[in-house]
């Protein structure tokens, strides 16, 4: 079953970032290959040179719902103004709320996140907070009106995968009815598959595709595993065992097997 946000049905559970690709063409090819459910974008100052327009011309063609982010914001006010400008320009209520709490890990600031989420929810935004994997923070964001949570797997761009699978499992168990997305830190398709196998609703990534040797192929690979990981979760995975159990049955074995 497809994932929907508000009334929009998303074509994929992979959300893709648009930053850091070797060229605009590669970006376009990566989006074509990934067919993502959402594409994330940001904002810059514009002048008559129209730098931002070329980028937009690539993106708009795909007709994929836009998820504007508040990347680079350190304060609540920055985040809110950015969100409002984004809503005006992209005509969407969706906002990836990102408030940097530390410049080295680019980790989200749990405290400002909650305040900003409250304000933005009150202003009618659909807030997708980029957050740590803290359970209490998650509860506060839900209390602040968020129906979607985006905990990190590892620091942005680190490609480390899941630093704390225990915390992520716990979030899934405790918020069975919220949309949970792992955002940031994934490096390999196996990471994305593991996330989906835990029952997460979607995966958001950027660097793992943009900085891959061949971004379009990597984009396609991630799209496939996200779908497959979801299917596997729904199909029901086997539980790991300490010991072995034969797959091939040992019945009606020919005589030479008795010659032991």
């Amino acid at each position, binding site marked *: 079953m497809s994932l929907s946000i508000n009334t929009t049905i998303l074509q994929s559970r992979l959300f893709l*970032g*648009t*930053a*850091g*690709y070797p060229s605009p063409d590669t*970006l376009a090819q990566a989006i074509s290959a990934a067919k993502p459910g959402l594409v*994330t*974008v*940001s*904002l*810059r*100052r*514009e*002048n*008559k040179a*129209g*730098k*931002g*327009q070329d*980028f*937009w011309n690539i*993106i*708009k063609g795909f007709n994929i719902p836009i998820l*504007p*982010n508040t*990347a680079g914001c350190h304060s609540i006010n920055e985040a809110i*103004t950015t969100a*409002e*400008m*984004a*809503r*005006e*320009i*992209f005509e969407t209520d969706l906002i990836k709320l990102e408030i940097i709490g530390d410049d080295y890990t680019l980790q989200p600031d749990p405290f400002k996140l909650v305040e900003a989420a409250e304000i933005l929810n009150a202003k009618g935004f659909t807030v997708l907070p980029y957050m740590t994997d803290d359970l209490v923070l998650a509860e506060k964001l839900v209390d602040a009106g968020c129906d979607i949570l985006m905990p990190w797997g590892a620091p*942005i*761009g680190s490609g480390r995968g899941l630093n704390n699978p225990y915390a992520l499992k716990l979030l899934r168990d405790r918020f069975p009815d919220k949309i949970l997305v792992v955002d*940031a830190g994934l490096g390999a398709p196996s990471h994305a598959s593991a996330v989906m196998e835990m029952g997460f609703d979607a995966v958001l990534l*950027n*660097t793992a595709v943009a900085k891959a040797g061949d971004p379009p192929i990597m984009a396609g690979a991630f799209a496939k595993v996200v779908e497959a990981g979801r299917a596997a979760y729904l199909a029901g995975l086997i539980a790991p065992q300490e010991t072995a159990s034969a797959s091939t049955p040992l019945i009606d074995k020919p005589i030479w097997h008795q010659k032991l």
Partner: protein
Amino acid sequence: MKITINGQPKDFPANFEAPLNLYDLLAQEEVIGMMIAVAHNGNVIPKGNYAQIFLKDGDAIEIVAPMQGG
């Protein structure tokens, strides 16, 4: 009068019969028709309302466009 556009102060002749509105300024900046959003002194101005915003000395205008993001 002085108006700061994206952080750069700029001089405009004050004309008291026909005061400068935001639409005209954006036209002069050649960004009309672009995919942009505009803030006037920190307030986001809906696309349709540019002509209703009359500028005065010291105003700050921010013009933003889409950019790649993660």
